[in-house]
């Protein structure tokens, strides 16, 4: 089994493991080492061919392998690069790499509306986390941001294209989980957008998973729209015997009092759902009596909704700070 060293921490991993997965294994082995895990905005373990697009997970490979110790000439996407025996990787220990990641974060934010105060994703948004951890205080971008009108893609999903970072996760969900993809990426360059074909509705038993995999507030649950800030809700694990054979029925209910405001999949510490759920569980079972409640959901990621977070300073707010005024 190949051994890889990431930020001076060594781990032995199975053949075919990516650098990102190896880093997550280090983080899972010892919570104190979680800082070596690169942020990932587009990679999603259970979605084939995901990853490589956002470039936030880039790392520096300062030694390719024992066999060929040459460093890799450019930063590589850790989510799509397999480890080799004897590979040495730098993430947080390389100032140039952190500078490059800061650049990527800035690129992702220049056209983002920063409308966190009215965005349902706020509090569980990966772009907020990224901006907080790797972003600059202000923006150097002084031009008009590109905007799109929010549209309904089906009865239950709202698309705010202005917030989208084009991670392609929702496209992969449609491709791999549903039969007959009706939405995709149209146009190119900086006017690329996620869109359905001529305002077709996305109607499929598993389409709601697009909401769960969206790292930002581009795809949100219309049944939860403006219902509550997520940090005022109480997440509990619950399950039901779902009639759909592809659905495990294992969910998280987001409660306010006894009211079920929202149903989502169960996300692990890396923000990925453990199993995909069907639309009936997600949108139609909004009553506690539909569910067997297991107990409080333990949230294990930096977030305003995670009381168990290890770093209390992080829980204050992960909103990007206000924009500095443009220089005259």
């Amino acid at each position, binding site marked *: 089994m190949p051994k890889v060293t990431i930020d001076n921490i060594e781990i032995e991993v199975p053949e075919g493991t990516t650098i990102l997965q190896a880093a997550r294994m280090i983080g899972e082995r010892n919570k104190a080492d979680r800082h070596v895990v690169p942020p990932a905005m587009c990679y999603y373990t259970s979605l084939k061919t995901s*990853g*490589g*697009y*956002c*470039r*936030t997970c*880039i790392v520096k490979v300062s030694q390719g392998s024992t066999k060929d110790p040459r460093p890799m*000439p*450019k*930063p590589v*996407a850790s989510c*799509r690069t397999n480890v080799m025996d004897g590979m040495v990787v730098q993430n947080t220990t390389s100032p140039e790499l952190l*500078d*490059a990641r800061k*650049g*990527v974060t*800035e*690129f*992702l934010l*220049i*056209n983002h509306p920063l409308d966190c105060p009215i965005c349902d994703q706020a509090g569980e948004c990966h772009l907020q986390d990224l901006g907080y951890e790797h972003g600059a205080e202000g923006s*150097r*971008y002084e*031009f008009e941001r590109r905007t799109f009108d929010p549209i309904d893609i089906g009865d239950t999903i709202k698309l705010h294209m202005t917030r989208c*970072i*084009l991670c392609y996760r929702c496209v992969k969900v449609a491709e791999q989980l549903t039969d007959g993809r009706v939405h995709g*990426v149209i*146009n*190119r*360059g*900086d*006017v*690329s957008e996620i869109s359905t074909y001529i305002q077709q509705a996305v109607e499929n038993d598993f389409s709601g998973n697009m909401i769960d995999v969206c790292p930002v507030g581009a795809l949100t649950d219309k049944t939860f729209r403006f219902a509550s800030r997520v940090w005022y809700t109480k997440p509990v694990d619950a399950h039901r015997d779902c009639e759909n054979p592809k659905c495990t029925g294992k969910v998280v209910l987001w409660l306010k009092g006894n009211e079920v405001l929202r149903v989502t999949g169960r996300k692990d510490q890396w923000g990925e759902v453990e199993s995909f759920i069907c639309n009936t569980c997600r949108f139609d079972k909004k009553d506690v009596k539909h569910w067997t409640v297991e107990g409080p959901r333990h949230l294990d990621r930096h977030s305003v909704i995670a009381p168990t977070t290890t770093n209390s300073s992080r829980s204050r707010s992960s909103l990007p700070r206000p924009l500095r005024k443009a*220089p005259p």
Partner: protein
Amino acid sequence: MARKLLLEHDNKPGIQGLEGYRANGGYRSVEKALKTMGPEAVLEEVKKSGLRGRGGAGFPTGLKWSFMAKPPGVPRYLVVNADESEPGTFKDRYLMERIPHILIEGMITSSFALGANVSYIYIRGEYFYIYRILERAIEEARAAGWLGKNILGSGFDHDIHVQVGAGAYICGEETALLESLEGKRGNPRIKPPFPAVKGLYGCPTVVNNVETIAAVVPIVNDGGEEYAKIGIGKSTGTKLISAGGNINKPGVYEIDLGITCEEFLNSDEWCGGVQGRALKALVPGGSSVPIIPAELYFKTAAGEARLMTYESLSDGGFATGSMLGSGGFYAYNDAQCIVRSTWNHTRFYAHESCGQCSPCREGTGWMEKVLHRIENGEGRLEDIDLLWDIQRKIEGNTICPLGDAAAWPVASAIRHFRDEFEFHVYHPQKVKDPKHFEKTPFVRKPKTVAA
């Protein structure tokens, strides 16, 4: 008069057709390879020739071919990259238009070496009329038995198809080209796996430029060693240069690698000198390579005469050198504005970015906006540093080389012509007229460039 290997017969009557091509020695390499050589021997000759990819990257062709995976029972493909879109480059168009059969001949011989029974030409959509020329040439070759089953009784089957694109520079990147050939958006793939392992339809594939494949013809005919005698060091053979911009004789020229840059620009055999005015700057290898000021075109920083080779043109690295690239050569006279040209370059890259990865999608558009502002007299001094920082953060951080290609022209323009950017900031009124340097050329302050 230099020797010509590819364009020797370009003005012969009927050379576009099979008959005229045959009359001038066409398809000899197929006969030689299939009847007397065998695939391994062809590969050996290509390796010996030192031929390097003519599309821009300059990767050794023999080495690329040797990476081709050979799993049993899986088809292999040769795909010819005729998506010539690099601004300044029009050599493949000329070659395919004049002598389409040299490409087909090269493809049969190369496919034989690679063990590919089907090959594709992916040609850019704008060259629709050449797509028709190629279709006709393929028909002719098929009718004459150069394509099909059991060619020349050798047991080798081969067929060629041509596919037309629809306007996307990015499809010149080999994996984007394969995606496009599969009927998808031209989004470059994440590598590895490389096409030699998983290419077209998931099968082992070699993607080569038109000129590279055409060069296999003289290499097989005369031997790799003969080919390698032309040129200097690792720059062997002849190269087609597309010459344009402010020169007296624009056109496609076949040169021996190794002639001096000065001779190429000023000799009447080639460019015939700069049109009317003084030479200001040069892009020697297509818009993606660094732009260099006149003095660094003629001489390297060490004071040696600059040669038309891969090595000499990149001597001095990015600080004082450039690159041979695809051979898209264009000269600027002193009426031209570097800021305007850089803005134009950046608009091109912003327009052609596929939008898949964030640094390129967002960064190219941002640079275009900042450059537009400076060129129109609305820039600030900080904008120049901002541009420098944006290009630095795009370069090396993208999925494919388009990000680098967008960054380098900006970096080199600021590196060599920073004072011209500053002039735009200090004299907004003077740059309002788009032709601001026509009456009074901008004179650079002489500076020593740090190596």
